[in-house]
């Protein structure tokens, strides 16, 4: 019965433990050769060899298994291969598991599980689930254990071609239910496992599972079926050569036969079992079987035999501290003495039994208290972990809130900046547009003013031309007519009329020049030159004894424009200068030829105008300058220049002024 939990667990966790148990020496040879091979290996091959060595060492020396597991992990980390790391974690976890260091084993299994999960290695994941199921079973966490087993079962059922994995997990589930006393469920899972083994024709699995079913049936008091299953298992073990396990089955058969009242066969079976357990030195099972055999002997009233067997069993139980068997043995021994009528002895043994029972009870109590304590501690730890996790979650939440706030602030700042930029752009565009529009408005106002001004000029010009001009022309014509009509009259009247005619013509000329100047916004140099030429020509016509010379430098751009004011001023200054020369320069002069020269040339920044004659000249100290010179000076000042007069008696006169060139 004890075989079930201990043996099955080993069977399904390591699977090959039993067979390797018989081959320790062979295994040692394998380990030595693996160790030798590992010395020449590197990388992946070395990791796999270390894993293999760790695997082989697990059932021999757990610490060596752990050592090689860690070596495998070191190599795997050097390689940086996740799959190798997972396999190394698995080796370490398995080594720790056999050493019953379940917390650490669980930790490494979880690490391996995470990697295999990410790598999508479902079979490795299922293997780890199975191992975690075993660990939780050992720790008494049956619900968790079952959860892991069912996860493993689900994966194995759909994703593995290995027919032994599904019944292995089914058997493990059965073990968990057995610990909980759910024998019907146990039977169900064992039978499913058996069916699977039969399907794959796995004799070893069939034998072990059949034996286990027999044990469960014994619990369910189905003695006949127990015997059938146990006998079948015995056949299997014998075929496989695993005779060590035959007496377990025999013991079960003996108990069943005894319970069915088949005492004679039970006696034989017990004897057989005792013999086999003795040869295997299996003291534990031997003690148990001896007690069963003693009980059987009572049916034959063989008290002495029973007492001897019980004494032997009690001795071994005391030596090996098999407390449970000691209690059972003492109770039975007390009953035997009582049946023999040795009541005092029976009483003494009963007392001893009571003490031992109390001890066992106390021990169990202590054990259960310890278990409870450990359960409490682990729950406390779990609670602490949960609290820590909750604290971490809280911190995470706070951090997330902070991050969100930061994101929000950044987003708002970005949006504000963006909107600001857009507004700035909009305002800039508006300003540019306003500036352009303002420039256009100013230009429009200017052109409007110019238009109006021009209109005014046109109107005045028209008036001057149409009215005053025509009237002056009429006066001139009338004076000429009158002059010819008064042919023989007084000469002074005639002279007066001629003077009047000349004055009117001058006025017409003046008027014409004024209209000319008024009609123009700008006067080109060419225009001015033509006008001056015309004036000099007309002057030449009037004073033919004077040689006129109008010289203009050829490098002056004829396109250069003066304002109307500048043009009229230049023209008037030259006109006045020429008139003054004609009036005063050659009076009483015998000099021949009489020359009047108007010269215009240009430097970089100025136009230079020179009116020069070779007339009589004058002395500045003796001559008082008239209105004509004053008017010329005023006009020259308007041109932002200065009138220079150079003259000496008999040396002629030179008038000079400049006009600044506009850029």
């Amino acid at each position, binding site marked *: 019965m004890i075989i079930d939990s201990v043996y099955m667990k080993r069977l399904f966790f390591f699977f090959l433990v039993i067979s390797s148990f018989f081959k320790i020496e062979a295994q040692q040879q394998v380990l030595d050769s693996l160790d030798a091979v590992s010395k020449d290996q590197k990388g992946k091959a070395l990791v796999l060899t270390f894993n293999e060595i760790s695997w082989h060492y697990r059932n021999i020396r757990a610490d060596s298994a752990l050592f090689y597991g860690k070596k495998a992990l070191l190599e795997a980390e050097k390689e940086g291969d996740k799959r190798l790391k997972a396999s190394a974690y698995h080796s370490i976890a398995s080594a720790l598991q056999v050493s019953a260091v379940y917390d650490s084993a669980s930790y490494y299994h979880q690490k391996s599980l995470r990697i295999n999960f990410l790598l999508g290695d479902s079979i490795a994941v299922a293997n780890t689930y199975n191992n975690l199921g075993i660990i939780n079973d050992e720790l008494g966490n049956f619900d968790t254990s079952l959860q892991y087993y069912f996860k493993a079962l689900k994966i194995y059922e759909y994703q593995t071609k290995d027919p032994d994995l599904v019944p292995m997990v089914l058997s493990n589930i059965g073990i968990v239910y057995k610990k909980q006393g759910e024998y019907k469920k146990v039977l169900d899972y064992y039978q499913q496992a058996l069916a699977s083994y039969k399907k794959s024709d796995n004799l070893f699995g069939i034998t072990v599972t059949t034996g286990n079913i027999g044990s469960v049936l014994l619990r369910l008091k189905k003695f006949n079926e127990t015997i059938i299953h146990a006998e079948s298992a015995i056949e299997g073990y014998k075929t496989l050569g695993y005779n060590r396990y035959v007496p377990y089955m025999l013991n079960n058969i003996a108990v069943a036969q005894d319970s069915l009242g088949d005492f004679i066969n039970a006696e034989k079976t017990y004897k057989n079992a005792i013999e086999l357990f003795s040869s295997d030195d299996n003291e534990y099972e031997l003690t148990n079987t001896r007690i069963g055999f003693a009980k059987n002997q009572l049916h034959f009233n063989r008290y002495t035999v029973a007492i001897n067997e019980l004494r032997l069993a009690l001795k071994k139980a005391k030596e090996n501290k098999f407390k449970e068997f000691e209690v059972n043995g003492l109770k039975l021994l007390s009953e035997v003495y009582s049946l023999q009528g040795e009541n005092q002895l029976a009483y003494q043994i009963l007392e001893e039994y009571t003490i031992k029972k109390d001890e066992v009870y106390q021990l169990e109590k202590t054990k259960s208290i310890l278990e409870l304590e450990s359960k409490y501690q682990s729950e406390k730890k779990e609670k602490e972990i949960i609290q820590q996790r909750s604290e971490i979650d809280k911190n995470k939440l706070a951090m997330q809130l902070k991050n*969100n706030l930061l994101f929000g602030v950044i987003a708002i700042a970005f949006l504000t900046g963006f909107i600001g930029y*857009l507004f700035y752009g909009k305002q800039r565009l508006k300003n540019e*547009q306003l500036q352009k529009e303002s420039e256009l408005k100013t230009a*429009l106002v200017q052109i409007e003013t110019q*238009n109006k001004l*021009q209109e005014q000029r046109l109107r005045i010009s028209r008036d001057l031309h149409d009215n005053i*001009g025509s009237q002056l022309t009429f006066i001139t014509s009338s004076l000429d007519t009158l002059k010819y009509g008064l042919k023989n009259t007084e000469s002074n009247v005639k002279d007066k009329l001629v003077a009047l005619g000349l004055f009117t013509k001058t006025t017409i000329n003046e008027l*014409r020049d004024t209209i000319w100047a008024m009609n123009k916004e700008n006067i080109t140099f060419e225009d001015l030159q033509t006008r001056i030429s015309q004036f000099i020509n007309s002057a030449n*016509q009037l004073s033919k004894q004077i040689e006129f010379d109008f010289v203009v430098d050829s490098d002056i751009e004829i396109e250069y424009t003066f304002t109307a004011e500048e043009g009229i001023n230049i023209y008037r200054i030259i006109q006045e200068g020429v008139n003054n020369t004609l009036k005063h320069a050659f009076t009483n002069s015998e000099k021949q030829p009489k020359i009047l020269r108007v010269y215009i040339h240009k430097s970089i920044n100025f136009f230079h105008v020179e009116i020069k004659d070779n007339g009589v000249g004058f002395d500045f100290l003796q001559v008082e300058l008239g209105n004509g010179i004053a008017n010329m000076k005023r006009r020259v000042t308007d041109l932002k220049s200065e009138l220079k007069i150079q003259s000496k008696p008999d040396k002629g006169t030179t008038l000079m002024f400049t006009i600044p060139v506009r850029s």
Partner: protein
Amino acid sequence: MPVSIIILLLSFSMVIVISIYFRMEHVKSKKAHKIRIHEYLIDFELHNYQIKKREINLTSYNFLNYNLKEVLQEQNIQ
């Protein structure tokens, strides 16, 4: 969906909406500006045309003046 991503998406959608609004405003403003400039230019052209027209008249007065001068010169010669 993480809040940060939601904030990011919201910001982007707001940026897009605001951009579209400002773009529309920009186009509208440019159109209005173009119309105003066009009106100014028409006025300007009108004045320019009037000035040019008047300049032709003025030139004709100059021409008349020139003729007058010739007449005067002829009279003077006589």
